[in-house]
């Protein structure tokens, strides 16, 4: 035990003391925060310019009504749409369109609407920048409102107060969980995606760190000296625990920073009296995520360590690491299926398979907590798989650390398992 402890200590200290660790600890969350801020900024950005448009109305009935329904205002108080020109029942559609198109090209207008004589036919919107999806919803709303009004009028129903009639329904989404209900604003999906990505990156990153650590001892021939005093299993165990300690330290720093930010935010909100609509993450989810991360780490780190021990150089290791990387990548590729229907047979089966369980079971728990027996079964299977993977890895490792030269193929690796 003392030897394992010495190896853990060395592995931990030499990693934590490097510049790479300090930079990684600071830079990774900064990149994360940067991405989040950028996304929030881009999605929250309000348009500041009025959309100047023309209307060609072949029916001659709708233009005025559409203009009346365009009540949307920009953040700076300007109207969102402004109809500068209306051509009602033009003698020549193409001439009217040509004239408007010219104005769009010269920059006098941003676009124009073509309304057919038959109100049930397609309405066209011509514009310079059709990617501007933000305009579609309010414009469609205004046109719909005008169309409905026109149809009602055609049936002899007179409407005096269109604004009240077209007041939208207010739909509020509430997530039901065993612990109660919480208002859903898209945060479940957000948290789920964040968790999946975090688990994926962490399992992959720390797995590869373990692999490279084994490889470094082989390529520098430090292994020759080490195995004269420690058993390969002690070395393997010490290495995996040492890197786990590094991972834990890094997460602790990040979580502390996050807690400080939240505390500071809460303090500010208390001082100013403005309540913050903070994202609520259930503690049980965090605990499960931690359990699945730790178990997943032990499985994947042993897997990666065995790969490192079987190789003699970086290039071989790059080529041989796919068996460990593939299930991780698959978990991320398939996560949409589980996210959309977490209780389907496919989701249940996938989340019970040990190689996928760390990511997919955590995902299911975050979306819709599955029955406890499914979680327990997945943990039990994962534990059994860890025992198996560690056994195989320890055997490959024991032979691999002494082998140099050609990268072994599968039959050779299988033969290594039988060496004593």
């Amino acid at each position, binding site marked *: 035990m003392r030897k394992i402890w*010495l190896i853990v200590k060395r592995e931990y200290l030499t990693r934590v003391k490097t510049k790479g660790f300090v930079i990684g600890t600071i830079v990774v969350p900064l990149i994360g925060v940067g991405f989040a801020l950028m996304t929030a900024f881009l999605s929250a950005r309000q348009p500041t310019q009025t959309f100047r448009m023309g209307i060609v109305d072949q029916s001659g009935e709708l233009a005025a009504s559409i203009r009346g329904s365009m009540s949307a205002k920009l953040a700076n108080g300007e109207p969102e749409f402004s109809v500068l020109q209306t051509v009602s029942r033009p003698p020549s559609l193409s001439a009217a369109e040509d004239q408007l198109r010219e104005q769009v090209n010269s920059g006098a207008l941003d676009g124009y609407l073509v309304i057919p004589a038959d109100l049930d036919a397609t309405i066209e919107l011509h514009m310079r920048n059709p990617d501007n999806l933000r305009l579609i919803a309010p414009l469609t709303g205004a046109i719909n409102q005008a169309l409905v009004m026109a149809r009602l009028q055609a049936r002899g129903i007179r409407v005096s107060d269109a604004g009240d009639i077209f007041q939208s329904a207010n739909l509020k989404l509430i997530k039901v969980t065993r612990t109660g209900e919480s208002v859903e604003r898209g945060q479940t999906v957000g948290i789920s995606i964040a968790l999946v990505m975090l688990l994926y990156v962490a399992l992959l990153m720390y797995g590869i760190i373990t692999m490279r650590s084994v490889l470094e001892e082989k390529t520098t021939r*430090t292994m020759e000296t080490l*195995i004269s*005093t420690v058993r390969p299993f002690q070395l393997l165990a010490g290495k995996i625990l040492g890197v786990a300690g590094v991972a834990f330290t890094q997460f602790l720093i990040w979580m502390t920073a996050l807690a400080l930010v939240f505390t500071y935010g809460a303090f500010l909100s208390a001082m100013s009296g403005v309540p913050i609509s903070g994202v609520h993450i259930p503690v049980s989810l965090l605990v499960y995520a931690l359990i699945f991360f730790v178990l997943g780490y032990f499985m994947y780190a042993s897997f990666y360590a065995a790969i490192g021990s079987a190789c003699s150089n970086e290039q071989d290791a790059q080529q041989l690491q796919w068996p460990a990387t593939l299930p991780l990548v698959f978990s991320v590729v398939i996560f949409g299926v589980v996210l959309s229907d977490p209780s389907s047979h496919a989701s249940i089966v996938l989340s019970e398979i040990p190689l996928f369980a760390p990511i997919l079971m955590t995902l299911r728990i975050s979306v819709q907590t599955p029955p406890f027996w499914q979680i327990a079964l997945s943990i039990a299977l994962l534990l059994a798989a860890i025992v198996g993977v560690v056994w195989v890895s320890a055997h490959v490792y024991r032979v691999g650390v002494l082998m140099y030269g050609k990268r072994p193929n599968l039959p050779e690796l299988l033969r290594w398992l039988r060496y*004593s």
Partner: protein
Amino acid sequence: MNAIELDSVTKAYDSVTAVDAVSLNIRQGAIVGLLGPNGAGKTTTIRMVMSILMPDSGAIRVLDQPVSDRTRDLIGYLPEERGLYPRMKVRDVIVFLAALHGMSEAEAGKRADEWLERFELSAWADKKLIDLSKGMQQKVQFITSVLHRPPLVILDEPFSGLDPVNAAAVKDIMLELRDQGSTVVLSTHRMEQVEKMCESICLINHGKCVLDGELRAIKQSYGKNTAHIEFTGPDGFLKHPSVAGVNRFGTGAEVKLKPGADAQALLKAAIECGAQISRFELLEPSLNDIFIERTTAHA
């Protein structure tokens, strides 16, 4: 007491038998040469003694105990393939490896400073290994193999890469270790080093121990069958029927005599032939000759 005992030890990899029923005893408190051509099974034997590998059959005892994790810590090992964590500091590496051998870190630190002083490396104690020259790294690695005062030291080519001053220092330390009662196993291809340092040898070839015992006794068993002759003038006498082999050099020749040949007859033939003889000496064969004879005869 024996430092190492092998009792008909066999180890095979797939189809190759690396070590084949080897039995040998290495006495405690001596410097012993472990010799053999490349691929003879030396490294496999050493690894089994270190309990890195388990023998397929046979028994191994180290310092009168069956090999185990405990006996492993009693051995100091300098592998042929050198290398230590390149980004660790010199003193940290030494302390780490000594601690793995069971020393307290405080004690290991104290002894590390003494050894670094002895090898004039004190100024480098806080430098990373990667910043040291190859020779300096060699010295650091040698320190890690003897720092924990092991009763058994196995050194694989300990002099390679060392300048004459440091090679002499390593040689002195080997003698000191022996005088303190430790056993030193020297594995090397440099026969002149073995002749100077070792009291006994063990020669392995094709996984078998082909020669084992006191170096002096082995040489004596060959008899004085080698004539060292320094001469000028004609050398026709070297074709004399009693000559089994000739090794010419600038000032003369080393002549191997056939078994039972009469050296006096050769000397007589040389004089009759007209050679000016300045030296004629009968010697035991060199270890180099014995090595070549024993490893090629069994090939």
